[in-house]
């Protein structure tokens, strides 16, 4: 029969139908998967402004950014010196204090208050909280200790406390996110 040669009409319809069904299937899966991502209202709340004028050297505050704590710390000259004295190559997550702060504002250490191990809130930002043996932050959950540049020095956490994207709107206001 002539239809045994080349593409048969039935093969064409078969492939076309299965392809159309496949494309339609992808079209159904995409919204079903995507709906679970952060919604517009969650993303809209993903930047925050903080007034830092009242934070004296040696003090820190806990603010909220993306429903998570963020630590804003005004380092003392002594703490800056301690952070700069460390041999960067010896660190688990090598970074200098300069890389973790903005130029000319090295005393403002702004990091997430989320331990990079399993997400607990480390101690050390609040008044009277223990700062751990490296003088920065200490996570009570599994004993991770961070130094005065919030770099991981001891314990199970793999990385330094994350520095979020931020900018100084003015000398006294920081916009995070």
């Amino acid at each position, binding site marked *: 029969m002539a239809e045994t040669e080349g593409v048969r009409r039935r093969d064409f319809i078969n492939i076309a139908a299965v392809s159309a069904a496949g494309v339609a299937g992808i079209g159904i899966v995409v919204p079903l*998967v995507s709906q*679970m*991502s*952060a*919604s517009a209202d*969650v993303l809209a709340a*993903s930047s925050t402004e903080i007034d830092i004028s009242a934070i004296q050297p040696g003090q820190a505050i*806990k603010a*909220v950014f*993306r*429903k*998570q*704590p963020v630590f804003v710390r005004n380092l003392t000259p002594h703490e800056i010196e301690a952070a700069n004295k460390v041999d960067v190559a010896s660190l688990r997550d090598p970074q200098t204090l300069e890389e973790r702060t903005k130029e000319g504002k090295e005393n403002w250490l702004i990091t997430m208050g989320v331990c990079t*191990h*399993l*997400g*607990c*809130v480390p101690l050390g930002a609040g008044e009277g909280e223990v700062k751990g043996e490296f003088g920065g932050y200490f996570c*009570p*959950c*599994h*004993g991770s200790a961070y130094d005065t540049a919030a770099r991981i020095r001891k314990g*199970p956490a*793999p990385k330094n406390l994350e520095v979020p994207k931020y900018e100084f709107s003015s000398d006294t206001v920081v916009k995070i996110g």
Partner: protein
Amino acid sequence: MSFPWAKHYTPAHPFMKWMDDRLPIPRLVYNAVGGGYEVPRNLNYFWNFGFLAGLCLVLQIVTGIVMAMHYAANTAVAFDTIEMTVRDVNWGWLMRYAHANGASAFFVVIYIHIFRGFYYGSYKAPREMVWLLGVVIFLLMMATAFMGYVLPWGQMSFWGAKVITGLFGAIPFVGEPLQQWLLGGFAPDNAALNRFFSLHYLLPFVILGVVILHIWALHIPGSSNPTGVEVKSSSDTVPFYPFYVAKDGWAIGVFAILFAIAVFYFPNALGHPDNYIPANPMSTPAHIVPEWYFWPFYAILRAFTQDFFFIPAKLMGVLAMFGAILVWFFLPWLDKSPVRSGGYRPLYRKFFFFGLIPAMLVLFYCGGAAAAEPYVMISQLAALYYFAHFLIIIPVVSAIEKPLPLPFSITESVLGKDDEAVLDVSAAPASAV
């Protein structure tokens, strides 16, 4: 799917005959859990726990549906709706505590059920599929229990959700987007609470479906038994009804007494006091622990404190924790011994009682303890043994062990002799069709 001597369903009433020709559900029930299902006569009490697990699933679904009638999955009110259920809803306290303790009871029962399988080699051919489906059920149970624990939106709920979803963040490259996708945000919040509620309602019915497959797969070869010797003749079995229905009824009685003691006298003994503090994203509890039934696996997660070549410690812990359960999927092929029951395997039995059980108990204890020395090192040693048990000891033991002589048949193991099977050559072992 049954032995040739199994009784046949013969409806007597005209309505039942009419029904049988149109929708033979009574026939299905009769052949599955009635007089038509022939079961080895020598089952011990460990064989009650499959039935009890089914009972727990029903208990959880019934109390859970009631809880959902009074609960609101919104971070502003979730904590309060649970408290109001307990304080204000008629019998709400009973439903809440039966549901919370029912989860613990379910895990007690299922752990005994699983370890029954380990000891008696229930996972071996021809029941591999029964075993694999069982591990799937266990994984689904863990997911369901975890999400259920988040719903009251207390401190442990919140921080448990944060830590467990944080595990996915350990996966290279896709970890962080994946975590945000799972949570629908940057941290557990309303979106996460809502989807956890939705899935917590869905998954028990998925479990129910897999349980039906689990029983279906079991009924192809029929139940195993403590000797591990397959059924040979009609004297080896008794019908499920009335014999095992009665025995399971007795098990319900014992279970109900213990469960009532827990619910009425110690309803919060297995819970954590911190979960009576509403969730606070700004403050971590001093000691985050999961529910007790996750402790052995949580200990394995925390046992990895050193980077392993290029794999960070955190990812290693996550892989090991999931691997600790996934290794069960390979058990039917890791254990090559032709002898099924641990009762006839002197070396295997020693490793089971003096290796696996103590290792599990040590991991259990360490998982609930603070993450400090000496518990971390003890967990490391126990986790090492745990994996060695499945990946090295079981294959090696099954190769070198000299098993004890097996009884000729189940009947012989019970009565000391088995005249019927010897005489009745027609009832060959392959009779399970």
